[in-house]
């Protein structure tokens, strides 16, 4: 379209770059913080440019841990976060795809009841039922275990709905052809449905991995031992209330490491990520 010359293409680019700067600035500063000495930071004299201590700080963070309290080195925490995120993502996908399969392709009594039972849980994020859920987990001896971290979060209405919606668009001819070929439910699932669902599964994986990695409230409650903490919790615990003792440069190292896997997943699997976001909100 012919537009007034004064606007042209300059303003959109300008605004977008300002936006990108706003979005990136906090992370940039965190990176800067991870490369300086603690005293420089605490005295409020940290400059905007990176400092010389990058390697030492990161080494300490990953292998040694902070000294203010006996905190675990970050390596352990990353493992915990990773386990939690993977189990939640894979577990949710696994359970949900089976449930969706059952609901769509079978007829059994209480089928619709089961569907609604699952659907309603959309409305109950963990934040509204924390203490009773905690009590149940504690009663089942799930405190400070990977099982406790993951199982209570693993039943996902969103994923089930997504798979159900997707299965409804799969043409009936496929299952009929399958049956003519002598395939039972297991073969049909494995040979036909599963390959078709791959993209959706990948898209969901991205979203769920991030969800699992970034969990805060639940791990906070269910883990008390240092060596079971996830990295997000670990960061929080590093910030001691009297901040003279907080080793900010190590905190910032941990922050950078905590952001790395989920951000890397989003950027490398961007198309799937966007698809996952859009599909789960329908």
């Amino acid at each position: 379209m012919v537009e007034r010359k004064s606007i042209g293409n300059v303003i959109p680019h300008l605004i977008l770059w300002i936006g990108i700067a706003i979005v990136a600035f906090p992370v940039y500063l965190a990176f800067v913080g991870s490369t300086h000495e603690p005293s420089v930071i605490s005295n409020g004299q940290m400059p905007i440019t990176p400092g010389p201590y990058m390697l030492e700080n990161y080494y300490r963070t990953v292998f040694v841990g902070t000294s203010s309290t006996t905190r675990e080195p970050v390596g352990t925490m990353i493992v915990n976060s990773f386990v939690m995120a993977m189990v939640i993502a894979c577990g949710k996908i696994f359970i949900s795809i089976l449930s969706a399969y059952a609901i769509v392709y079978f007829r059994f009594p209480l089928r619709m009841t089961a569907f609604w039972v699952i659907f309603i849980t959309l409305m109950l994020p963990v934040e509204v039922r924390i203490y009773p859920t905690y009590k149940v987990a504690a009663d089942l001896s799930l405190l400070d275990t990977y099982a406790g971290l993951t199982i209570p979060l693993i039943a996902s209405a969103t994923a089930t709905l997504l798979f159900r919606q997707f299965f409804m668009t799969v043409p009936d001819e496929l299952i009929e052809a399958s049956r003519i070929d002598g395939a039972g439910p297991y073969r049909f699932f494995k040979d036909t449905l599963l390959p078709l669902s791959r993209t959706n599964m990948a898209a969901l994986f991205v979203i769920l991995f991030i969800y699992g990695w970034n969990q805060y409230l639940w791990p906070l409650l269910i883990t008390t031992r240092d060596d079971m903490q996830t990295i997000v919790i670990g960061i929080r615990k590093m910030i001691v209330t009297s901040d003279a003792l907080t080793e900010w440069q190590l905190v910032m190292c941990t922050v950078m490491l905590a952001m790395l896997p989920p951000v890397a997943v989003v950027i490398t699997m961007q198309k799937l990520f966007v698809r996952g976001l859009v599909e789960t909100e329908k």
Partner: protein
Amino acid sequence: MEKRAVFNNRLLPFALIAPQIVVTIVFFYWPASQAVWQSFLLQDAFGLSTSFIWLENYIELFRQPDYYNTIANTVLFSAAVSLISLSTALLLAVMADKPLRAAGVYRTLLIWPYAVAPAVAGVLWVFMLHPSLGIIARWMRAAGIEWNPLLNGNDAMIMVVLAAAWKQISYNFLFFLAGLQAIPKSIIEAAAIDGARAVRRFWTIVFPLLSPTTFFLLVVNIVYAFFDTFGIIDAMTGGGPAKATETLVFKVYADGRLGGDLGGSAAQSVILMVIVIGLTAIQFRYVERKVNY
């Protein structure tokens, strides 16, 4: 809405659906109903006897000025986060909707904050706004602005709002961009020919046609501000100073930590459940209407 072709197995579907149902009942419905049940009870100080007191816990809640304070905080917080986050994202999406050459690059550069945990976002912003060592705090002092979120409740609220809004920009941006791209170009062209310049076109044509997306995002943002921001508040202010940043979710957590009032804590949880069910219901009923082209 039903599949015509199904399998006839009797037991298999139950086996397939069992894991989810079991987890759902054990970790969703049982605790939720416990919460509802407990909200009607009063436990004595030693936990020895319980009595059924109907809605007393709720009434008691609403008698505390603290609770009203928390409600006010939560409403203010949600409104501010939604407003800031949505308008920033809308502006960026409108700019990115033009046929620019680097459109894909811009999108990548703007969506990655979605992957940052709320708690981490909180830590990032604390690092910048901390009164003694934060860079932005230093700049503000140099400019003569008073800034101390550790002591000043308003400053603390501003701090958590900024962190929460920052994190949500990328999600809103994505959906706004998709919404903008769904508007047929010919309608924009028709409006241009009809005498509307860019700004007028935006407010009379684009924004109204974007309203399903806007409404949807508004609901999502409010739910986000109510519930997902726990990590931000815990990491930045712990609800303080003096409960200035205590939201409903945080209050449930904090009160429960202290122990003691099981009934009151349960009542708070139930109130939150009602709110989220209401918001989700609105989302499903009203947001599904799409504009036809």
